[in-house]
């Protein structure tokens, strides 16, 4: 379904992959997301920016129902519709595990399992019941290639994931997220625990990955959002203040609040 809003300016033929519709979310009594709406375009990088506590990570973690793991969290209205099948990810009848099989995630701090490099990547295939050795080998290899890690680890697949450097560990986690061939990958501040060189390699990887998959990234680094994203949403106090094409958000924001944040007058 082609979208024809003003948002399209400068980005041709973007298809809608998911649509956040008037989403309300509560941590216990705390109203963390207030009627948030935003589109996620297919094979594009969408960035969420905003000061700490604005709800950007909370919104990201709605996409794979991570909030379901903890008591007291509540989706209180609206939803996230995934296309092309028009499924509301937050509908009560939808199994969070099914959602996580379609949408994978890379965390803030690299979190490889204390298993071998191979088993780390293979895990997201094993939970899907894949056990054929050749098939696993192929998928692990292509995921590691996709995450630009294959050349560094091809001869040490049996070593522990934790023996890799921080940047390599994060690419290992990206390979794990990529192996299952997801529709969307969520990145939750993926470079905040990394040095500048590792950060650059991850950013480069993310821009390459959008060939294969739709990307939603939370970042507290505005330059990073400007460098790698096609669309940007600015959030503040649980609300989506402004959403648009990244260039427009950074060069000509429509709202004063966005401009204040972008220019560093606030936040």
């Amino acid at each position, binding site marked *: 379904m082609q979208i024809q809003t003003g948002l399209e300016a400068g980005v041709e033929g973007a298809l809608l992959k998911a649509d956040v519709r008037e989403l309300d979310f509560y941590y216990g009594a705390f109203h963390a997301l207030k009627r948030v709406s935003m589109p996620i375009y297919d094979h594009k990088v969408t960035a969420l920016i905003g000061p700490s506590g604005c709800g950007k990570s909370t919104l990201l973690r709605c996409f*794979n129902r*991570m909030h379901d*793991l903890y*008591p007291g969290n509540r989706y209180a209205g609206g939803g996230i519709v995934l296309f092309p099948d028009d499924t509301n990810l937050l509908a009560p009848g939808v199994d969070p*595990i099914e959602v*996580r*099989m379609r949408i*994978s*995630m890379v*965390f803030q*701090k690299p*979190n*490889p*399992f*204390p298993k071998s490099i191979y088993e780390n990547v293979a*895990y*997201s295939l*094993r*939970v*899907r019941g894949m056990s054929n050795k050749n098939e696993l080998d192929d998928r692990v290899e292509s995921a590691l290639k996709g995450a630009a890690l294959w050349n560094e680890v091809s001869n040490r697949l049996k070593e*522990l994931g*934790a*023996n890799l450097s921080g940047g390599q560990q994060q690419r290992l*986690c990206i390979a*794990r*997220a990529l192996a*299952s061939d997801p529709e969307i990958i969520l990145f939750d501040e993926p470079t905040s625990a990394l040095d500048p060189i590792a950060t650059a390699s991850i950013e480069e990887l993310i821009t390459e990955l959008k060939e294969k998959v739709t990307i939603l990234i939370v970042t507290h680094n505005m330059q990073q959002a400007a460098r790698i994203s096609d669309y940007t949403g600015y959030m503040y106090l649980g609300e989506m203040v402004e959403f648009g094409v990244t260039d427009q958000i950074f060069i000509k924001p429509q709202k004063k609040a966005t401009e204040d944040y972008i220019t560093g007058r606030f936040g």
Partner: protein
Amino acid sequence: MLKAADLEAIRAIIARAKRWDLFFSLLGILSLMVGVLTFTVLFVDMAIQGVPRLSLDFFTSFPSRRAENAGILSAWVGTVLVMMVTALSAVPLGVAAGVYLEEYAPKNWMTDIIEINISNLAGIPSIVYGLLALGLFVYYFGFGQSILSAGLTLALLILPVIIVATREAIRAIPQSIHEGSYACGATTWQTVSDHILPYSSAGILTGVIIGMARAIGETAPIITIGALTFIAFLPTAPFAGDPPAGLFEWIFAPFTVMPIQMFNWTSRPEAAFTVNAAAAGFVLVFMTLAMNGLAIYVRYRLRKNIKW
């Protein structure tokens, strides 16, 4: 500008403050010694008395009215068999309960009450477990004064230790690993069996062995359920009888255990039996220390491959 006098003053303050460091470290060493030295003195005293008595005969003889002929065969065999029943029943129950509480149980007041009570269970005097077991296992279930009753009683006794150790070992796994597994699309059971149990096994095993080390020395509940103090025969060897019923004949056999044998000997008037008791005590302490040593080794081995 810093003046020489100021520097002097600062040094004086540091020196004064450091006196407390010295004071506390002395106090700490003293406190430590109270525990360590007492145990060492007891153990060495027991070893001096008992070790000369140790011989192959001591391990392969039944108790006897003549001190020099008496041995601990029925006692150590009884202890080993009771411990087997304890481990086989307490470990699956304790680990399952711990995993359930950490991973599955809804967080509500019911769970809170259960959690508080599990910690309390660990503090209940062991004789109370003995009374419970006498009524429940010995009479109600009709297990009699058997290895099975004793093993299950000790299992109840160490269950809270294993549950608490399991929960602590699980909590030591970072939240990020947990979330990483779920984010891959794993179910709770997949997360438990592929991640939680393997990564917490070192901690769980340590808890199990520490619990077993406690159980091995328990006397009161075993006496309560009616362990005999004089046994001059062995139960059928485990799993050796005619299948299927014969395989489990041993668990219904009467038995005695090391601490009871010791207790029996210390209550005899002849000095020679006191030497026997010291020798048996040495063996018991050695068994306990060996189990703790095993716990340390196992933890070291399993943790080597786990880095977050």
